[in-house]
């Protein structure tokens, strides 16, 4: 980290970051004038186009863990790091074929809308809101810890202060600009991040005379693992770890409330599916380029750089940038380091904004309006409670992130997020849309068992179980998905059979609406 402690570099980083902040705050000011109704606050008046939403989904999805984490994992462990990226992209097949259009057609603001449509609304909403808040909470704390650690290493600001600043800026976007501001912040961030990744890739390839094979060809020379670095098995020790992590990603995105919520911002189902097309194009290119940067980092930083990249190799990408610019202390090195660091901060801000706005939907639209007030409230009150909810969720996450501290393993929280999303949210959502016999009991039991089993198994797993080298962890796998997802589905099924069958007509209505878009929430006319 001391390599990065050049003061001029810090000043530059803060300068570039201030420029990004100025642009995004300008967007927020503009968006605030269009944000008054619930539909504008949560769904940007459903006026975001497919291409815009695709960029925003990419901006929402390419988190700090995706960029810094994947480059770091590939730098430290080679091919296994790339597997996580490929799996993260693969998850969009699940989203596209099963949920994207159906969510747009059947829902209003939150994931819970779809469950409440055909099930007993209050308990089903409560269950979905709890699932949402757990998933979003873990992800939020992970991103905030990442923000604090990064700010501290790259801009010389104290960890706890950095977490507070992240929370404050994000809240400005969310509270004043709602989903419109959040969407555009995500779009700006996606463009910046892609530009940064393209720039780094060009510089990496330039170093090896534009021969991409040379990037991978050189990597094994700088590691004790030799050629094995280019194959799987260095990060995932057990074969089942590879499979379980892959499955967690494949089904996890389809249970992430902040990603699903993005489909409510487009005018119709056609735009929803087009946004997935744009998103997978961008995210796929992103991970291909990240693999070049990650393998390139081996040759550029060498084995000697491992210590400086920190826990999980999170600082590998900024260090590579500095190195490609000419090294520590050079002007080029400072500039590139500042650019990539600022992009990484913007990345975190955009992701936490998306997370908090989806949490505010669960608090205000699901719990307050429909569970507490039985739907008897006006829109003004709903948006007010949404803002209070956003404030509360962000405040709790901020305190938890500061208490957990930077020593906390971020990767563990991210894997927890995907495993919980895939085990608790996804089964109930899918069965509500597809299975006539599904009922309220099934949803409650399914969400409950999925939530408890995924969290419990993670606590019992090697990354968390206390003791020297996690010896004797009761659950052998690093990711519980391969066990907890089937448990979630079985619980949905068993609960449904134990409970009373519910009226068929609500299911038929949901089905027709989801498949054809008849009766779907319309877009708001442009002012």
């Amino acid at each position: 980290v001391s390599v990065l402690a050049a003061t001029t570099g810090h000043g530059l980083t803060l300068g570039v970051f201030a420029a990004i902040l100025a642009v995004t705050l300008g967007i927020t000011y503009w968006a605030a004038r269009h944000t008054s109704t619930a539909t504008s606050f949560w769904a940007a008046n459903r006026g975001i186009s497919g291409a815009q939403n695709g960029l925003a989904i990419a901006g929402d999805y390419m988190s700090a863990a995706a960029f810094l984490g994947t480059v770091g994992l590939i730098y430290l462990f080679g091919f296994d790091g790339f597997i996580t990226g490929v799996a993260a992209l693969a998850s969009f097949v699940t989203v596209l074929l099963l949920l994207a259009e159906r969510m747009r057609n059947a829902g209003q603001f939150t994931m819970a809308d779809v469950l409440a449509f055909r099930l007993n609304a209050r308990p089903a909403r409560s269950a979905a809101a709890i699932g949402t808040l757990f998933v979003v909470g873990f992800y939020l704390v992970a991103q905030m810890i990442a923000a604090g650690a990064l700010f501290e290493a790259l801009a010389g600001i104290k960890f706890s202060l950095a977490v507070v600043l992240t929370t404050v800026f994000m809240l400005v976007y969310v509270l004043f600009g709602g989903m419109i501001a959040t969407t555009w912040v995500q779009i700006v961030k996606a463009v910046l991040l892609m530009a940064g990744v393209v720039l780094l890739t060009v510089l990496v390839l330039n170093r090896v005379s534009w021969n991409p094979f040379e990037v991978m060809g050189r990597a094994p020379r700088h590691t004790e693992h030799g050629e094995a670095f280019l194959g799987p098995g260095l990060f995932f020790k057990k074969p089942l770890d590879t499979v379980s992590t892959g499955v967690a990603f494949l089904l996890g995105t389809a249970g992430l409330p902040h990603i699903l919520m993005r489909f409510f911002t487009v005018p119709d189902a056609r735009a929803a599916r087009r946004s997935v097309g744009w998103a997978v194009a961008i995210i796929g290119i992103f991970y291909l380029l990240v693999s070049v940067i990650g393998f390139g980092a081996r040759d550029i930083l060498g084995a000697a750089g491992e210590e400086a990249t920190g826990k999980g190799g999170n600082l590998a990408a900024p260090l590579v940038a500095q190195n490609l610019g000419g090294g520590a202390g050079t002007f080029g090195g400072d500039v590139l380091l500042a650019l990539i660091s600022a992009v990484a901060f913007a990345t975190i801000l955009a992701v936490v904004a998306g997370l908090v706005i989806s949490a505010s939907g669960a608090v205000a639209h699901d719990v307050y309006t429909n569970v507490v007030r039985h739907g008897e409230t006006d829109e003004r009150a709903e948006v007010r409670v949404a803002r209070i909810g956003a404030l509360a969720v962000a405040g709790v996450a901020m305190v938890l992130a500061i208490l957990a501290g930077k020593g906390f393993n971020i990767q563990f929280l991210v894997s927890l997020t995907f495993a919980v999303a895939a085990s608790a949210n996804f089964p109930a959502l899918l069965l509500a849309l597809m299975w006539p016999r599904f009922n309220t009991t099934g949803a409650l039991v399914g969400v409950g068992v999925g939530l408890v089993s995924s969290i419990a198994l993670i606590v019992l797993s090697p990354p968390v179980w206390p003791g020297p080298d996690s010896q004797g962890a009761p659950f052998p796998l690093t990711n519980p998905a391969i066990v907890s997802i089937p448990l979630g589905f079985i619980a949905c099924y068993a609960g449904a059979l134990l409970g009373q069958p519910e009226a068929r007509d609500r299911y038929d209505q949901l089905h027709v609406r989801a498949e054809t878009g008849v009766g779907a929430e319309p877009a708001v006319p442009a002012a």
Partner: protein
Amino acid sequence: MRGREPRATQPTGAASEGRFERSGAPVEPGPAERLGAPHIAAIAHTRAYRQLTARRRAFTLGVGGGFVALFAAFLILSGWARDWMGTTIYKGLTVGYVFAVAVIVGVWLVAYLYSRASNRVFGPLAEQAREEARR
């Protein structure tokens, strides 16, 4: 109605009058179709609707299943055939990397095929189902 439970029986509100079209697509459904449950039930019983759900299910199982098989093979080979996945084909290019790129291209292919099927088959069938129900 906003801020309450979404209802299929939602009456035609002010919001559905001035529908706007930013994506260039016809915005569905029209106000006349937002009539509620009886209309929805009528759609469910059309031949076109049954075709729509059957075709979509076939696509999901066929194309989606094919992709899941590719992805599963990638994970399983990465878990149990590590040496083979790590075999270098050309310079630093390994079997595993080629497989990974194949999965990425596979995602793009699924997105393209689904979009094409939606425009050519699913969209027209949904339209037809609404037409049949209106009669």
